[in-house]
Every structure is written in C-alpha cells, then in structure tokens.
C-alpha cells in the first residue's frame, strides 16, 4: 500500500499526543531550564519541517564539527517513526520519487546520510530521451565520450531519502524532536530580568509547548508558516496543472537492461509526461496535465490507466485528446490506434503492463519564489523558499543546495563568533542561493510555457526551439549539466 496514505490514515485516527511528548533521540539529555513550563527552552536552531530539506539540515548541522555544539530542535506535524521505519517489498515503490543529482548525492554522502539510504531501492540512469509530442523533434544528447554511461542522476523514493536522513540524525543524536505536533503559533519573545528576547521567535506547538529560536529555519514546504510569520512575501502562480504520479511495472527492465537505464520525457500540449526508471522492471510516472484530465486519469480502471500511459508516449496529441473524453474503454481504443501510429520503439519506454495499486495520486503544480530567504532570526530552505515545476526534477535538489549553503554560512558564523540568527550573518546564504534558484525557476517556467501551447504561431517556433536546442551546443550543455548537477553550479 502507498505508505503516504498509510501515514495519513494513522494521523486521521487521531494519535493522542501529550504535551511533553518530545522524543529525545539520544541518551544524554541537554537540560536547559529546570522550569520548562515557565521559561521556554532556547535553541540555537529550530527547524520546522522534517521533509528532505529539514532533515538534511539537521544531519548536516550535527555532522559538522563547527556546528555540532549547537542546540537544535525539529518540529514536524507528521509521525516520524513512519518515516524512519519505511520499508516496502522489492516489488513495490512509493509514488513520490525524485531524481537526485550527483551533487545532491555527494552532499548527502558528505553528511553521512547516503550510506543509510537503501541502495537497492535507488536507480541511477545514464540516458535521457526528451522530445516534442507535437512536432516529434528531439533533443539529441551527445554525451561526451568520457561521460557516456556516466550517471546523470539517481531516482529515489522521497521516503527512502528521508528515512536515511532520519537514521543519520538519530545516529548523530542530540536533536530534540517534536513530531506529531503542529505549529499553533509563532510570536516574538519578551523582555525580562534574564534578557531581552523581543527579537527572538517563539514557536508554540499545538500540544502547548513553547520553544525559543536563535535561528528559526522554515523547511516547512510551500505554504511555509515560518515565511508567513517573518512577513516574507512570495510571488508566483499556480500552473492550473496537476502532476499525476504512479508506480508502473514495465514489460522488461528497459532497452539497455539493468546497467543502462533511460529517463523519458515527452512534451505534450497539456504539459510534460515523464517516465523515470526505478530498480528492476519498475518506473515512476510524473504526468503534468490539466486538473480535469488528472481527474479522469485517476478514475480509470488499472487496465485503462495503463493504456493511457502507453498512449501518452506514443499517440498524437489529437488521439490523446480524444481518449481523454472517454470515461472507459481506453485500452481497446489505444491498442487499435497504436497499430496505426509510427514510432521508433527503441526511443520510447517499454510497454507498461501494470500499475501499483493505490499509487495513482496527483499534486497541484505551482511556481512560488519567496522575496528573500532570510529575515531577522529566520531562514527559509527548500520548498518554503521556492517551488518549481517538476519538469526538470530540480525541486528537491534545490533544497539540498540551499541546505549545503546555509550550513556553510552557519559554520562561518559559529567559528567567527557571530550570532547565527542575525540577518547580517545570513547574508551570504541569501546571496549565494537566490539568484541561482531564480534562474532555475525561470528556465523551467519558460520551458513549460513554451510547450503548453498546442497550435498557433508558437508551434513552429517551438519545434524550431527544440531543433535549435539540438544545434545550440551551449544551451543543450546547460540542460545536460543541470540534469547532472555537474555543470556551472546552478543547482
């Protein structure tokens, strides 16, 4: 069963959380104030959000000698034991997968987390096939000789990553974890005999507990309560598109076998559809489409859903549009139409023969960019700072880049006696990440817009665009280095 749904269900069952329900992840306890009820606990770093960005931040802070003396806390509304104990049979995969660039992986390795990610569930890929569904034009990736067969990126379940990160955090210890608790409110401290905390954020948990943060890090996703508390605006829009995800079973392990895996992406007028390899005969689907079509796809029988996915990589946009108007019977229709369509089987994914039960789900796609990543005693990382269209598989990777940069900034501040919370200490983080992320958001947004038009004056331009991409070495190089995170560091 889909573990996300599992986690959700147990949450809805209403696990009772007592006010003092904070799990100490290691034997030695760092006591702070004796009267916890009156004087709220003061932490150097309070991270809200235990997703890929938040957990990675904690693992990095605890593994760096310069920052390992900091007193840190994590607040997460979900039950983290579900994350830690994540386990599925070899034939099942969670539907939320991300491609990790080599630079994300080397960062995860440097903080000691990658070795705790179950490697048998990770699938590196070495080839990409990207083409335009309307004109058929393809980006030809002529990887340099020394780059041939080199890993472009690693497909991995988000839960396999967060599970490994959490194990690393537990291995390092000394993190106060408040899970199964939502943030009820964030306010500012007061001036007392003890000191002047009027500039310090105080996080109130719905269990009643209060924690004070020298630096409050928002790793709390796209609707970031931390960003709202800090009064940091964000710009962007909803794409009016949903990402339909599913775990698929294919007829084989790919045309190149286990050692040469390929990622496929076809640009359709409704948005890109991507099939990314997982271990064995499995793949994960990300199909960006309109909310209506997403609803149709989710309602189909497994047989018809499989047929639609096969069609998405084979049939013309006109055929697809027709198929979407049907409420059932897609399987027969696709079989018939496929016979009459010309395509090069070796350049498209193998036939999908199964879809994992309960794995079809959809997520709204948005573009958001916070006006800044820092404020007084506040820093934002990951989706809290920026949310990107998934077409380039960069969202989670950008978050890892943020964390790497923020930890470097904190290390410098600590070793130079700066208050890690004040904005001046955080300036280099914002400077290092903002422009780079903004550029990536812009590129992916423009690619989406360019392809989300079916006919009219843009279509010839678009295929011209793709052909131009083929012709233009440097631009293609940009895509290639982005995919692998090795090129000009625009993480």
């Amino acid at each position, binding site marked *: 069963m889909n573990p996300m749904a599992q986690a959700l269900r147990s949450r809805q069952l209403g696990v009772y959380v007592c006010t003092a329900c904070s799990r100490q992840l290691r034997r030695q306890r760092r006591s702070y104030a004796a009267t916890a009820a009156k004087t709220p606990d*003061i932490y150097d770093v309070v991270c809200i959000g235990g997703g890929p960005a938040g957990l990675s931040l904690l693992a990095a802070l605890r593994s760096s000698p310069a920052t390992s*003396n900091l007193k840190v806390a994590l607040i997460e509304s979900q039950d983290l034991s579900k994350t830690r104990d994540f386990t599925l049979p070899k034939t099942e995969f969670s539907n939320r997968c991300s491609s990790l660039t080599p630079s994300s992986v080397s960062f995860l390795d440097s903080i000691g987390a990658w070795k705790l990610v179950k490697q048998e569930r990770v699938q590196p890929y070495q080839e990409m096939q990207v083409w335009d569904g309307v004109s058929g034009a393809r980006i030809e990736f002529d990887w340099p000789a020394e780059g041939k067969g080199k890993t472009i990126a690693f497909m991995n379940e988000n839960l396999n990553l967060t599970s490994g990160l959490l194990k690393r955090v537990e291995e390092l210890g000394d993190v106060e974890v408040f899970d199964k608790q939502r943030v009820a409110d964030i306010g500012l401290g007061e001036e007392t005999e*003890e*000191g*002047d*905390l*009027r*500039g310090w954020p105080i996080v109130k948990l719905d269990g009643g507990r209060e924690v004070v943060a*020298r630096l409050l890090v928002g790793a709390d996703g796209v609707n970031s309560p931390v960003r709202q508390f800090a009064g940091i605006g964000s710009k962007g829009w909803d794409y009016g598109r949903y990402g339909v995800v599913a775990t698929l079973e294919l007829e084989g392990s790919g045309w190149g076998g286990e050692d040469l895996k390929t990622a496929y992406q076809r640009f359709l007028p409704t948005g890109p559809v991507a099939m990314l390899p997982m271990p064995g005969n499995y793949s994960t689907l990300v199909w960006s489409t309109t909310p209506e079509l997403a609803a149709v796809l989710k309602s189909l029988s497994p047989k018809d859903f499989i047929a639609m996915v096969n069609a998405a990589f084979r049939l013309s946009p006109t055929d697809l549009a027709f198929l979407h108007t049907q409420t059932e019977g897609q399987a027969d229709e696709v079989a018939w139409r496929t016979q009459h369509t010309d395509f090069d089987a070796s350049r498209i994914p193998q036939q999908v023969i199964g879809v994992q039960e309960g794995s079809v789900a959809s997520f709204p796609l948005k573009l958001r960019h916070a006006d800044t990543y820092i404020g007084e005693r506040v820093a934002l990382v990951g989706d809290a700072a920026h949310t990107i269209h998934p077409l380039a598989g960069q969202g989670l990777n950008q978050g890892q880049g943020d964390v790497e940069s923020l930890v470097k900034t904190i290390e*410098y501040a*600590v*070793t*130079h*006696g*700066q*208050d890690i919370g*004040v*904005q*001046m200490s955080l300036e280099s983080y914002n400077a290092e990440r903002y422009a780079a992320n903004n550029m990536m958001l812009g590129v992916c947004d423009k690619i989406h817009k360019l392809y989300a038009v079916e006919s009219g004056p843009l279509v010839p331009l678009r295929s011209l665009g793709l052909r131009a991409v083929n012709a233009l070495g440097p631009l293609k190089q940009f895509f290639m280095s982005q995919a692998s995170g090795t090129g000009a560091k625009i993480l």
Partner: protein
Amino acid sequence: MTPVPLRATSIRNLNLLLKTAPRFVQNQFRQQSTTSSVNPEEVSHFNALASTWWDPHGSSRLLHLMNPLRHDFIRTCHASQPDAPPTTGLKYLDIGCGGGIFAESAARLHSAGSVTAIDPSPEVLAIAKGHARKDPGLKDKLTYRNTSIEGLPIPTSPAEQYDIVSIFEVVEHITHPAEFLDKCTPFVKPGGWIVMSTIARTWMSWLTTKVVAEDLVGIVPRGTHDWEKYINEEELRGHFLRERGWNSPRVMGVVYVPGLGWKEVSGSERVGNYFFGIRKDF
C-alpha cells in the same frame, strides 16, 4: 596639521606630510606626560557614534564586516605557536570595546572561557550592555566594565592575566600610544598574545580613510580618524621588541574591496589597515 583637500596641486603638500609625520609620531612615543590614555575629544566622538553601533547598514558596517578577520588573525597567531593553544577556557580582555562587536563575538566562541570588555565612554558601554542582553547566551561569559585600562587592578599572578588582550581600532585614537601600550602589557599572560589592529600612516591610508571613507563616500562619519595618530607596523614591532619579553610578532594587512568585503592582502600593512600580534615570553 589638517590634511589638505585632494587637489592636483596638493601632491607636494602630501609629500611634505609624509616626510614630517614619522617624526611627529616618534615624538608621541616618547612623551610621558599624561596619566590617562583617554583622549576626551575621542570619547565624545564615539558617544555620537553610539546609536548606530549595531545597525548593520549604518556607519559601523565596515567594523562588522571586519570583525571575522580579527578571529582569523588570532587563529593565525595561535597556529604559529610551537605549543598547541588551549581549545577551551581562553580568557579575553578587550580594551576599548566600543559597542561590543568583538567582545560579543569572542564570548560566543566555543574556545572562550570568559571575556572582560572595557571602554571609558559610559554612553558607548550602555549600548554594549543593552545589546548583549539581546543574546542570553552571553550572560555567563561576557562582562563589561566602564573604565579605561588605568582603572583595572594590575594583575599580580598569571591566574589574573589574560590569554588574549585585544586592542582593536584603538591606538590610532590615543594621544600617547607608547604609554598606553605599556599599561596594557601587564595584563597578558606569559605565552599569551596582545593583538591589535590599526591603520598605517601613509598617504594611501590618508587618502582611503580620511578622503574617501569620510569625505567622498561618507561610509565613516567625518572626524572618526586622526591621521596624525596613525602608527606604522615597524613602530609597533619596535616598541615591543625594544624591551625584552616578547616574541613572534605577526602582521596581516587587510584591504576593503567594495562588493567583496575585507580581504587579506600581504604587504598592505604598509599602506592601510593591518593587524598586529605579538606573544609574551614564558
């Protein structure tokens, strides 16, 4: 002797300044008259600055930006020792702490045991104390005292002395630096360091600190620097090495590069801001 405004014809005057200044400062080093190191004019100038001390975009921004280099410099001093310096419990004395930019940062270091920070200006010290209250982590490690160095009891044993005595951006504001430094040295533990930063007295430093920083760009309020009080590195070195008891003098020249911040530039101690450190014999 006021610096001449920058005009093409003033080059001759600049040369004149260059020739006469060293002797002037040498004279300063010989004078032994006053009892307090504190120059009342300087104190009132810093009182006026106090309100902007902790504004990261105010007139003290350059100092905030320079502060990390002070720690880098102390680290290079420690790294140069043949014996390993202690990694915890270091005692600091910060003389002329101002708003506490260095004192606070020293107290936050894991290696610091305690920091005593002094400044003769009550207004400035009030700012420092008020600001320190905003970080409860400093309470146990940082002590401010409203005094000049003369007001501190002279230590009688190493236990009362300090591992690091820091005098940052101070000597250029002192009328009789030699006498002042002699009052500071008894506070250094055997094997400890006296570290300071100041500005070399050259036409280049006059141009960058008086003309560019104060007059043209205005990042530093006018009257902050009195160029005539600038001291060159050889003079400091000579002062300490003349009397025995000190070893391993170190210098690091730094340059402020707009857009990049403070950078270490070797040799630049001869023309502008520099750090100077020297170790007390055992």
